[in-house]
C-alpha cells in the first residue's frame, strides 16, 4: 500500500487517522479476531453503549435474520460504567488511541451522570449519545422528539467537556430537523443512523421472532435510506456527519463519503466478515489512488444537489 494518499479526517474537534470505526454494539474488544496491530489501524474504536448501572438486556431470541438485514433486540446489557472503566477501558487504550464511548440512559439525569462520570478520563476522545434505545417513562423516545432531544443534549453538554456525537434515530419524517436540533443543543457531530424499528413473525409457530416483540433493522437492506439521510443533512446542516447502516465493502463506505459523511461506522457486516473494517480502509485508499485524489477530503460531500 503506497502512502501517497491521506485518509485523515476532521470531524469538528475530533481528528481521525481514517474514517472507519465499528458501530456501537457490533464490536467487543474482548472478543475480536483482530490483532493489536489491526486494531490500531482503525480510525477509532467504539464499544457497545454503556449504562450507568448494570442492566441485563432483553430476553431472547435477540437476533433474527431478514432479507439482506438483521433485526436485533439485544437491548443494552451493560455491567455499568465502573466496570467499564476498570475492565474494558484499559484494553481499549492499548488497542487504539481514539476511543469513542457510546452512552445509553433511561432519563436525562441518567445520561448526565454517565457523561459526568467519564469526563475525567483523558483516554476518551468523544461521547456518542445513543438516542434511540430506551423508552422514557412517558414513552417518548429522545430520537424522535425534537424538544426532548434538545433538552438531553443541552444538559449532557453541561456535564462534559468532551465532543458530543448525537446518534440519531432514522425513524423520523425529517432527519434534517433532528440534526439541526442536535446541533443547536450543542452536539458537534452527528451519527446517522441507528436501526429502523422492525418486526418479524414466525408464521409456523405464530410467535414473534424476537423476545422483545420489536427490534432494530440493520444491514445492507437499510443502506439506501441512510445514504439519503446523510445527503439530506449534508445539504442543509453545517455539522460533520458519521454515516452508518449497511456498509459491507469499500464501495458502500465511499457512497456515504460522497453523500457527505466524514466518517463511516460498520456494524452488522462485522458479523459475517470480521475483517471488513480493514478491507474497507484499504479499499478507500485504492479508490483515492485510482481516481488520483491526494486526500479523502476531496471526495467528502462531492455529491451536490
Amino acid at each position: 500500500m503506497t502512502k501517497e494518499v491521506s485518509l485523515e479526517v476532521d470531524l469538528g474537534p475530533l481528528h481521525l487517522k481514517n474514517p472507519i470505526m465499528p458501530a456501537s454494539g457490533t464490536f467487543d474488544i474482548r472478543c475480536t479476531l483482530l490483532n493489536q496491530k489491526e486494531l490500531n489501524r482503525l480510525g477509532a474504536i467504539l464499544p457497545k453503549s454503556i449504562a450507568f448501572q448494570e442492566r441485563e438486556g432483553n430476553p431472547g431470541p435477540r437476533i433474527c435474520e431478514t432479507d439482506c438485514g438483521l433485526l436485533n433486540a439485544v437491548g443494552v446489557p451493560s455491567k455499568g460504567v465502573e466496570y467499564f472503566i476498570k475492565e474494558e477501558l484499559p484494553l481499549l487504550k492499548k488497542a487504539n488511541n481514539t476511543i469513542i464511548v457510546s452512552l445509553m440512559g433511561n432519563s436525562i439525569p441518567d445520561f448526565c451522570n454517565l457523561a459526568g462520570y467519564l469526563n475525567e478520563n483523558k483516554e476518551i476522545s468523544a461521547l456518542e449519545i445513543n438516542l434511540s434505545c430506551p423508552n422514557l417513562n412517558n414513552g417518548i423516545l429522545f430520537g424522535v422528539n425534537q424538544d426532548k432531544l434538545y433538552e438531553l443534549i443541552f444538559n449532557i453538554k453541561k456535564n462534559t467537556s468532551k465532543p458530543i456525537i448525537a446518534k440519531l434515530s432514522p425513524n423520523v419524517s425529517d432527519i434534517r430537523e433532528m440534526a439541526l436540533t442536535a446541533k443547536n443543543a450543542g452536539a458537534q457531530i452527528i451519527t446517522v443512523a441507528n436501526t429502523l424499528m422492525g418486526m418479524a413473525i414466525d408464521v409456523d409457530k405464530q410467535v414473534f421472532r424476537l423476545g422483545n416483540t420489536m427490534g432494530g433493522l440493520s444491514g445492507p437492506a437499510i443502506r439506501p435510506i441512510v445514504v439519503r439521510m446523510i445527503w439530506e443533512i449534508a445539504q442543509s446542516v453545517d455539522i460533520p456527519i458519521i454515516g452508518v447502516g449497511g456498509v459491507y465493502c469499500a464501495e458502500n463506505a465511499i457512497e456515504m463519503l460522497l453523500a457527505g459523511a466524514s466518517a463511516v461506522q460498520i456494524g452488522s457486516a462485522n458479523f459475517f466478515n470480521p475483517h471488513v473494517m480493514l478491507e474497507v480502509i484499504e479499499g478507500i485508499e485504492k479508490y483515492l489512488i485510482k481516481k488520483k485524489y491526494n486526500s479523502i477530503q476531496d471526495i467528502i460531500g462531492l455529491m451536490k444537489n
Partner: protein
Amino acid sequence: MKIENINIPLMISGNLIENINLNDNYYRMRIKAPQIARKAKPGQFVMLSMWKNKDPFLKRPFSFYGIESDSGTFDILYKEIGKGTQIMAKSKAGDLVELIGPLGNGFKIPENTNNIAVVARGIGIAALMPLILESKKRGIAIYAFLSAQTGNLLLCSNEINSISEKVFYTTDDGSKGAKGMVTNFLQNVLKEEVIDVVYVCGSKRLTKHIRNLQRKYNFLAFVSLEEHMACGIGACKGCVHKTNDGYKRVCKEGPIFPVEEVIFDD
C-alpha cells in the same frame, strides 16, 4: 492483554471435499481447513458461509461432527431447513467455505470418568459424535440414547452401535426401537447403575427430563444449546440463554452448559 488471546478463533477459507446426501434432508460435508481442524475440540462449532451475496446475510453455526487433525479436515452433519442450508445442500466438492472457528467452549470429560450417557434427538447427535469418539479413545463406556421421528432418521446408528456399551432407540412412529421418551430407558439404566456424566443435545424437552433425573440420581450433566447467532464470537450479545447466573452467550460461555445452570422459560 487480549483476554481470550490463548484461544482466538480463526477466519479462513476452507475447501469443500465432499458433500453427501445421507437421507431425506440430512447431509454430511467434509471441509479441508487444517488450521481449524487442528484446533477443534468436541462440542465446539464453526460459523460458516458458502454465499457471497447478502441474502442470506449471516454465517450459520454448525458443530464439529468429525475432526481429523491429521488430514486437516473436519465433518459437519447437517439438516437442510432454510436459506443457508439449502445453498449448502447444493454445493459441490471444490467450492469455497468461509469459516470462523473453532468457537465455543467444548465438552468437558472429567478425569476418572468410567461411563457416560449421550442423549440425542435427530440431528442433535452431530455435536455429540466427536465426544463419543473421544470417550471411546479414553476407554470410557458409552450408553447411547437416541430418538427420532422415524427409523431412518436415527442418524449414525451403525457407527454408534459399534462403539457403545449399549444403545437404546425410540422413534415417534415406532418404526425402529420403542415408542415414547428415550429418557425412560435412561431412567431404567440409572436405577441399576451409576452413570458418571450425561450429555444431551439442545432439545428442550430432553434436557428438562435429564434435569429431573439429575435431581433424583445426582450425576454430572451437560447440554449443548442452540440459539440464533449473528457473530458467533461473543461480540453481538445476540445468542443469550437464560441461566441461574443471568443471560449467558451460547457462542462464548457455551454452547456446552451444565444442565443445572440452564433455565427454560415456559
